[in-house]
């Protein structure tokens, strides 16, 4: 199990270092939407963004990772307790 921590820890570090090299091309769905002139209609303003520099990108990643793993951890602990 220790190996899994090392593998996923390394995985996270590698992807954090890749953040500044992320492609700015639209993704497959966005490109297909543009192709057929379909636009989104936002109905919700999110408080954060993924950032547009390396530093803001890393901050976004750290916040996102902390919240995602925290919520999942608490949720599974609670559902186990209820069960």
């Amino acid at each position, binding site marked *: 199990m220790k190996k899994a921590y090392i593998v996923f820890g390394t995985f996270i570090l590698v992807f954090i270092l890749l953040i500044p090299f992320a492609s700015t091309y639209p993704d*497959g769905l966005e490109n297909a939407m543009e192709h057929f002139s379909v636009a989104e209609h936002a109905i919700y303003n999110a408080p954060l963004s993924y950032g547009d520099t390396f530093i803001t990108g890393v901050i976004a990643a750290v916040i996102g990772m902390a919240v995602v793993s925290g919520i999942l951890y608490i949720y599974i602990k609670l559902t186990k307790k209820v069960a």
Partner: protein
Amino acid sequence: MHIPDGLLSTPVIAGTYLITAGTVLYASKKAKDIPEEKIPLLGLTAAAIFVAQMVNFPVMAGVSGHLLGAALVAILFGPYASVLVMTAVLIIQTFLFGDGGVTALGANIFNMGIIGAFVGYYIYHYLKKRSIPLAAFLAGWISVILGALAASIEIGLSGIVPFVPFLTLMLTYHSVIGVIEGVLTMVLVKALQGEVEKESLPSEVN
């Protein structure tokens, strides 16, 4: 592949929310089978999926794609744990970062989480006797293609695009994007191969 707000019709929104809510509820019931000592690792894995989805790779001129991760998590921890990981990732992406529409959340969890979790899991387990790397590659690759197929059907059913041309374009893009998913799934499953067997949950296939 995050569907934004404004694309899906009300029946599609309702249908996808219903299917997703039912599946997430069932996966939550199954969460009691996740061994206590594996919960922190699952949290770390969810963090890894979140950061991986932030990084888009260029796949052809003007098109990029990112990892989904559902098949990978399902192979390592079982499909129900994978559904919960992907749900957590997508909820935070939607509400904190505005990635994916609020009305499309049910569809996005279904397309990128639920499909990948179950399809990826079963493809891997049926094919792993032949070849573990091939099984892992196909699990990742096909999960992306089927996710794109589902997204296209949902958007097509909402009546805002010409169905077949949209579907064709989506499948073309995602059959290429999925190759990256397949390769990374293969590399990570191979790296954790010894662990994977040990990590298997007893009730995965129930």
